[in-house]
């Protein structure tokens, strides 16, 4: 009778569509990316193998190095600045009883919206002439600031928008973990006379370390994925100052027709993602013991 669950045909029927789709849209493109990456293909003419030229050029390419750097800035900003803020805000929300639901719903809201719509919205907020930000600053007598046109400010402006969109998501994530901590631990500490800040730092934060790790991990992955917001808000400009690896790759391929080079860049992005994930797992996640309570 057990044979029902051993029937290989039914098994195949369950598994095959997934495998076929997955192979077609993940494995096959990965293989072809590698293949294209070693050619000088321009999409129009015949391609020729050029060995490692694309990869050598990529590391000589100052613009690409700059875009790696920008990804790194996003990564550092989201892990070193956003994550502490996220933890603080989650602690704040968890410490109140009234409006807790309202806060949670509101801060989470931007993360369900389309990044490109948010890009349009914030492009308008940053508009030098009619935008909200300069309108506010003008009442304080501040001169017009060109948020997205000034090379030094543009990346920062995008970082703020990105934070605005995603912080709430992570706050809710951590908040759930905080609220799952048994109340008696906290109450015992309260009886011992620990202040709110002390309890948060010595009790809650250690208990939610695993989830903070998850948030850091997701932030790293997120920092490497950033591309929509750049394409919509600045297109990588001004003068390449907001280009990230993915936007640079897309532009090289589509705008310059350098599909071979673009494919090589995508392999490099893939490699960087793998290295960062592995490093994080080795250095940090492994050392962490799961805390059971």
């Amino acid at each position, binding site marked *: *009778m*057990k044979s*029902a*669950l*051993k029937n290989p045909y*039914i*098994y195949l*029927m*369950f*598994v095959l*569509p*997934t*495998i076929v*789709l*997955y192979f*077609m*849209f*993940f494995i*096959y*493109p990965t293989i072809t990316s590698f293949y*294209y990456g070693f050619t000088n293909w321009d999409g129009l003419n015949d391609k020729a193998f050029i060995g490692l030229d694309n990869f050598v050029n990529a590391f000589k390419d100052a613009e690409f190095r700059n875009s790696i750097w920008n990804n790194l800035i996003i990564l550092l900003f989201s892990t070193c600045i956003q994550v502490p803020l996220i933890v603080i*805000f989650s602690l*704040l929300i968890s*410490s*109140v009883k*009234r*409006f807790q639901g*309202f*806060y*949670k719903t509101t*801060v*989470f809201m931007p993360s*369900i*919206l*389309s*990044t*490109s*719509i948010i890009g*349009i919205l*914030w492009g*308008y907020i940053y508009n030098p*002439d*009619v935008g*909200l930000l300069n*309108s506010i600053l003008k009442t304080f007598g501040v001169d017009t600031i060109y948020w997205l046109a000034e090379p030094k400010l543009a990346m920062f402006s995008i970082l703020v928008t990105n934070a605005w969109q995603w912080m709430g*998501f992570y706050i*809710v*994530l951590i908040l759930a973990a905080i609220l799952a901590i048994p109340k008696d631990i906290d109450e015992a500490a309260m009886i011992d006379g620990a202040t709110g800040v002390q309890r948060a730092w010595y009790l809650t934060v250690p208990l939610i370390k695993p989830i903070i790790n998850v948030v850091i991990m*997701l932030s790293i992955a997120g920092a490497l*994925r950033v*591309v*929509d917001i750049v*394409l919509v808000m600045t297109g990588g400009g001004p003068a390449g100052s907001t280009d990230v690896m*993915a936007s640079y*790759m*897309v532009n090289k*391929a589509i705008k310059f027709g350098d*599909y071979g080079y673009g494919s090589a860049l995508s392999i490099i*992005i893939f490699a960087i*993602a793998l290295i960062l994930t592995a490093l994080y797992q080795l250095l940090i996640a492994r050392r962490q013991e799961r805390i059971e309570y």
Partner: protein
Amino acid sequence: MPATAKKAIPHIFMLVYVVIILVPFLFVLFSSFKLDNNEITQHPFGLPKSLSFDNYKETWVKAKISVYFFNSLYLSLSSAVVGVFLASATAFALTRMKLDTPSRWIYQFVLIGMLIPGNVLFIAQYFLVRDLHILDTHWALFLPYTAGALPFSVLLLSAFMKSIPHELEEAGTVDGMGAIRMFLKIILPLSIPSLVTVFIVNFLGNWNEYLLANFFISKDSLRTLPTGMVGFRDMFQMNYALICTGIVFSVLPVLLLYMVLQRQIIEGLTAGSVKG
């Protein structure tokens, strides 16, 4: 410090946060009713002089938002539904059927997909879609969207289905149930919470996708909301009141849905990211 003041501190910080989240929306909403850029610059924070819906009419006609909206809706829905269905069938086979060796291999094989950042495959997928002759059709998005969600969905659903007690199917096999009925009648209903999670994650992912939609579709009538709205912005880049109206149109339905389903959406999305 008095206790009430102390209690107020978190609220003050949170209020600032909430204001930062909400003010951009209000600004856009107010701007959408204003006549022109002039009125926006002169009274950036003021309520519009008169509540005129002219911008709304004009935007609706000019931007084809209804078309974009419908495209996004049915693409996101269909590929999320198909994705959930395929992934759950696979997860069932991997976790509940007794072919352990292939299951282990397939699981590892699918796991690789989790390591590949989506936009890395952009160029290769573009040419794949071209070679399939589906460029500039909705299939060009439906297939990558469905496929793109598979690794995550299979892993999440496998984890969930593994935790369902095996006694259930044993009872089922005694009753003479086949594998397919067992899947549909026992496992699928029990997995509904995780199915909903997977569905929401996939749906919103598709709903918001920009990169593929921008390059795989060039016909205006096939565009989805994210790319359609960017095109609309490029077209009316000088008329901020109109652009704001477009933003309101594209954001409002999502926000309404969020208000109704906020608990499911929040739980679905957060659970999805943690378990994944």
